[in-house]
């Protein structure tokens, strides 16, 4: 009789320059939901990548139901019904929902794909997650939240013995989360073991049976979730006391910087009017898919607005038809998908920071690198960006530090307003606090700041004013943030 479905013993893994895993032992019981928590870079993903055959371990052994196994590719792991749902969406955008769900796992009849059963099965799998969409439409038509659920459905199609969910809730709204959790509990009852990786410790506390806490490539503690508090977990993860971002009441000037009137984009949002004052932090709350990102993409000129919508900057009408225009008016934009449009991975930290400023730093028609280097060094220091050198490729930095480089990029450009979409998504607890402090520092310097965030804690800690968006419309504001709670924000959203 074997107690553990999976037992990973004494796993070590080195990457050039770092010890990613150091003698890690991880045990997963049958039919449990097991949380794996730790800061970014603690080794959670590496451990799970080894379990699913993406990486080879340097030393150690893996046992599946007591028998030693050896995975050299994800295929091997899938064959044993060990399935990973990665954090980054991993779908073929042009293919249909059903095709994506059964990609690599097609339902075959007489050597050909059996489309009828494929569609039926896809529908059934999605229904289990309470998703009811047309499974024949291409995946790209779905919102990121639904796409995440499609990737989970794809994993379920393998009838997993072990299901690994890496940050599954990052893009989900409350409702969808509830459905996911329900499905998780159902799977557990059927005997599936689930590894749940999350930065959201509330979810960990509520949903999981046991928790393994990792730090710097080692396991620091394995404990029943009921026997530990959130604060203890945070302290174990960080290795030192972490202070939560504290709310500070700030004074904001009365001068309006950015004034939007009647902005509309069919199918995305309708008749949006709002303004932002100098030095104000305006947090935009609302459910994923409410149109928050779309409103500000339009305001920044990435997408075009429909006639009638107007934008005024410092009282004068501004013509913003492209990001180039927006930047000329002193607006910067930090997108929600860092890898997709935030960074140029193969360029150095310095270049990623200084790209938009090259135009102003010229000597004899060429870039004045002396100045560029000194500005870069200043920001690396003042923003506490952890990077070996300014010439290190940005892809080798952690998410938090990449984000700081992106913020520095706009500060170096001398902008007056910064739009930040989910500025701390996928960033660990410590770096999160640092980014929050950075945002406040910038606002104190008079920069108008928009923070679009799905994390209520973040919104309540940062905002001078909260704007709530629901189904493409502004459903209300919360001006007195000091006394507001998460419930208040939700009430405004649904009123």
């Amino acid at each position, binding site marked *: 009789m074997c107690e553990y479905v999976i037992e990973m013993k004494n796993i070590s893994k080195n990457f050039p320059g770092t010890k990613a895993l150091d003698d890690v032992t991880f045990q997963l019981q049958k039919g449990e939901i097991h949380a794996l928590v730790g800061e970014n870079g603690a080794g959670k993903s590496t451990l799970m990548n080894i379990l699913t055959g993406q990486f080879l371990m340097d030393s150690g052994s893996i046992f599946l139901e007591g028998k030693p196994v050896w995975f050299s590719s994800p295929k091997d792991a899938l064959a044993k019904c060990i399935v990973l749902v990665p954090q980054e969406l991993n779908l073929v955008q042009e293919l249909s929902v059903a095709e994506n769900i059964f990609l690599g796992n097609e339902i075959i009849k007489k050597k050909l794909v059996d489309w009828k059963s494929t569609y039926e099965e896809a529908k059934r799998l999605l229904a289990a997650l309470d998703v009811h969409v047309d499974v024949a439409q291409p995946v790209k038509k779905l919102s990121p939240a639904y796409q995440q659920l499609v990737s989970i459905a794809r994993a379920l199609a393998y009838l997993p013995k072990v299901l690994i969910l890496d940050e599954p809730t990052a893009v989900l709204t409350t409702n969808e989360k509830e459905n996911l959790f329900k499905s998780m509990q159902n799977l557990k009852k059927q005997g599936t073991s689930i590894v749940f990786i999350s930065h959201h410790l509330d979810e960990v506390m509520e949903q999981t049976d046991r928790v393994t806490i990792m730090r710097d490539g080692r396991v620091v503690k394995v404990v029943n979730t009921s026997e530990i508090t959130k604060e203890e977990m945070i302290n174990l993860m960080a290795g030192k006391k972490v202070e939560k971002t504290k709310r500070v009441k700030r004074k904001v000037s009365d001068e309006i910087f950015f004034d939007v009137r009647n902005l509309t984009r069919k199918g995305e949002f309708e008749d949006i009017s709002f303004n932002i004052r100098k030095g104000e932090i305006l947090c935009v709350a609302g459910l994923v898919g409410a149109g928050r990102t779309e409103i500000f993409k339009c305001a920044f000129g*990435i997408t075009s607005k429909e006639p009638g919508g107007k934008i005024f900057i410092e009282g004068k009408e501004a013509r913003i038809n492209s990001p180039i225009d927006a930047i000329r008016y002193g607006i910067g934009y930090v997108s929600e998908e860092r890898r997709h449009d935030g960074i140029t991975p193969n360029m150095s930290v310095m270049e990623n920071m200084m790209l*938009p400023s090259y135009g102003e730093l010229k000597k004899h028609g060429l870039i004045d690198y002396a100045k560029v280097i000194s500005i870069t060094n200043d920001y690396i220091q003042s923003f506490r960006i952890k990077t070996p050198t300014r010439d290190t490729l940005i892809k080798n930095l952690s998410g938090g530090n990449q984000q700081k480089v992106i913020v520095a990029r706009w500060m170096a450009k001398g902008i007056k307003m910064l739009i930040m979409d989910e500025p701390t998504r996928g960033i660990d607890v410590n770096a999160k606090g640092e980014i929050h402090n950075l945002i406040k520092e910038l606002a104190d310097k008079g920069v108008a700041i928009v923070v679009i965030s799905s994390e209520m804690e973040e919104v309540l800690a940062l905002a001078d004013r909260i704007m709530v968006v629901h189904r493409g419309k502004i459903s209300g504001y919360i001006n007195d943030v000091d006394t507001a709670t998460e419930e208040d924000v939700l009430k405004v959203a649904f009123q």
Partner: protein
Amino acid sequence: MSKVVKFLKSTAGMVLVVTILIGVIVHLKTGNFFTPYNISTLTRAASFVILVGFGQTIVLLTGGIDLSVASISSVCGMFCAIFMVRMGMNEYVAIILSCLLGIVFGFVNGFFISCFKLTPFIVTLATMEIYKGIVYVITKGMPITGMSASAQNLANGIIAGILPNVVIIMVIICIILTVLLNRSKIGRYIYALGGNRNCARIVGIPIEKVEMFAYSLSGFLSAIAGVLMACKLASFQASIGESWQMDSITAAVLGGTSMAGGIGSVVGTIIGGLLSGVISTCITLLRVSSYWETIVTGAVVLIAVLIDALKDNASLRERFRARLMRR
């Protein structure tokens, strides 16, 4: 010091080492490789493809591709011959004018690609055919002979018996392009555009302008190569540079330029172009049938990109290693 090590570890560095090694081995076997005559002929022959390769590299850096380079070379070489022979223009005016025409042809590519968001592959495939067609329509496939002696001297001249003029021109252009790519705003924009187009848009890079610039520059460089080739042969033939579009891509890729954009350099392209040249010379020196040349070149490209892929892709490398270990 570490810079040297870094260079040797790059694709271009490895290709350079291989190129020199091949030269040494062939020299030891035949004693004919490192002679002034061989080196000057080899570098001169390679310079034409390298010049076209520069343009190709710049376009590849933006994440595009230019299949029309060879046709632009041909059409500009033809205009140069027409200006000189049929219209009796001063040879230097004719050369400069026909090189500038290359910018126009390149700009047409850039215009369609950036303004209408068409795929570079398709647009340049179409213009390749069109430009090639223009040559045949105008010349009816007949050569244009009788170019002036000074034009011939420009392309055939050799300084001190070892340094051909064409190589000097190529090196000067390489220096200018390196400064442009590394130290000017537009140069960095070219890398940023190929590195991540979405990010480039958000940081306010004028994508359309950068793209048009890259294709125009590619047209200009192709034209220089075509015009010089026409001068070298003292006559224009429609077949000038027929194979250059693929040779230029080969040179760029062997020089470490990524087909996905954002990574590469023109210095690398020189090395890549030299390796192709060395391979073809060595095949002649070793008296192997020249029919083998393309097979060897193809195999070298395949090996180079394979090494590159293994170098950059950790999981691929691991799987490769695992497979070897199991054996």
